[in-house]
């Protein structure tokens, strides 16, 4: 009897979660449909000119900015996170390792707007001293990297914990160096989980809105230099959605749909099993 109830409740919860995702996709599709019909792909996907009041709805520069910011943040945070995670298992004394894990857990839980605010009041004035106006691409990259670093550490840490103790014992018996143990015993076991972790972090970076909005400068231009402001797709939605109507708002929905599809594609990549 109780088992029956449990099955229903869990089934309903799963159904609800799945249905919500489909509903969101359907709603995004419905809300952006007029834009898809009325604008040619060339105008919204391949043009970088965004001036809704003059009828220009090109998303390309902002899409490029989103990708640039996320890829660079990942390039900073993922290797650093993997190294820190590995160090927790290989070199760190336990009185450092456990507070460090707790700290990473806390860092992962801090709301993004807090990172954004810190970036705005601390990092932006700092960057401003060598690259005015301070709210530029590199600032956004740094804030985002800081946000996904704990995820990267925790994923690596959890993955390394899956390495069977007997493999480690065998490595010790063979008198492998720490590097040898990491490279030959741990890495082959964990690289799959770490790779999917990296893809998840990429999705997180791509979808991040508030923190990026506060530090990226939000000027619409192609990302060409680390010291120039850019506007990401998410920041654009947050900046303009409250003030948009008609085709303008439909294109904003369309850009949301694009992000969603992209993130879903990343997730499928993970499910399909990425290999490094």
């Amino acid at each position, binding site marked *: 009897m109780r088992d029956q109830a449990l099955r*229903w*409740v869990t*089934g*309903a919860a799963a*159904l*609800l979660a799945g249905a919500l995702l489909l509903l969101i996709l359907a709603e995004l599709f419905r809300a952006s449909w007029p834009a898809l019909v009325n604008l040619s792909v060339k105008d919204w996907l391949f043009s970088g000119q*965004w*001036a*809704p*009041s*003059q009828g220009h709805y090109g998303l390309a520069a902002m899409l490029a900015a989103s990708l640039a910011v996320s890829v660079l943040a990942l390039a900073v945070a993922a290797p650093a996170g993997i190294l820190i995670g590995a160090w927790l298992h290989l070199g760190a004394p336990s009185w450092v390792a456990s507070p460090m894990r707790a700290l990473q857990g806390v860092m992962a839980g801090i709301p993004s707007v807090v990172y954004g605010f810190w970036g*705005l*009041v601390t990092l*932006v*004035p700092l960057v*401003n001293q060598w690259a*005015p*106006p*301070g*709210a530029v691409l590199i600032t956004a990259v740094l804030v985002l990297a800081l946000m996904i670093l704990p995820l990267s550490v925790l994923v690596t840490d959890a993955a390394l914990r899956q390495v069977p103790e007997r493999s480690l014992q065998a490595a010790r018996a063979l008198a492998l160096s720490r590097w040898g143990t990491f490279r030959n015993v741990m890495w082959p076991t964990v690289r799959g989980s770490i790779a999917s972790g990296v893809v998840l972090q990429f999705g997180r970076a791509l979808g991040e809105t508030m923190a990026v*909005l*506060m530090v990226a*400068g*939000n*000027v*619409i231009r192609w990302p060409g230099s680390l010291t120039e*402001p850019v*506007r990401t797709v998410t920041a654009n939605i*947050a*900046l*303009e*959605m*409250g*003030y*948009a*109507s008609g085709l*303008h708002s439909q294109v904003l929905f369309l850009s949301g749909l694009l992000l969603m599809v992209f993130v879903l594609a990343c997730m499928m990549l993970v499910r399909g099993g990425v290999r490094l």
Partner: protein
Amino acid sequence: MGKAFRLLAVSMMALFVSACGQGDHETLVITGSSTLAPLIGDLAADYEASNPGVRVDVQSGGSSRGINDVRRGTAAVGMVSRELREEESDLTAYVVARDGISLLVHESNPLDALSADQVRRIYYGEIRNWDDVTDFQEPVTVVHKGEGRATLAVFLAHFDLDNGKVQPDLVVGENQQAIRSVAGNPGAIGYVSIGAANHEAERGAPVKGVAIEGVSPDKDAVASGDYPLTRNLNLVSNGPLQGLAKDFVDYVRSPQAHERIRDHFFTPVAGTR
């Protein structure tokens, strides 16, 4: 599967019923402009205190949201911090207060006045260093607002600027963000609601207003009509106001509300009843 579906339906209904269960008092929903929301929120609290059994929900989200919600009927009253456009003539606007828009620079900038032409050249990127206009060696950082913002529209119209030619270094959304950005950068210039700017400057933000066309941005200049860059803050409705909505809008436009309006650094409109 069928059973799971039934359970889902039942729990959704339970949620719905419990959400509606609190409806034993009358509720007025007001949405829109983030400039107006804090003022209307305070006035709503005053109004609730003197009218037990009434609830006034104030939600911000931008002037366009106010217009959309009123048209759709999800809000009875909308807050719009600019004049209604031609294509919005189906709505009725009720002026609540006037707000000036101030050009804002960092405290360390010795500048105290700009001509309209200088403002235009700064925003078109022709003046790149402050030493062109004042005794200050610092690159100019132009802080601009996102497309569709009411402040942006008023600013562009007043200085006759073409938004496509403006060369911003930084684009922000809310007034607060603009003020923070100017406070954190000695070379920055931005434009924000005078109300919001004074509020932050009083709390110690290192920013100051710049006179345009010889008039400094302060409340008195807005009240007297001398300050050139002002806008009306409006409540809007779709069709004639009725019942609670009418009563509340009347209250907001009555002299009883003037003190609150001044608290928020806006100027009550002389003609309001």
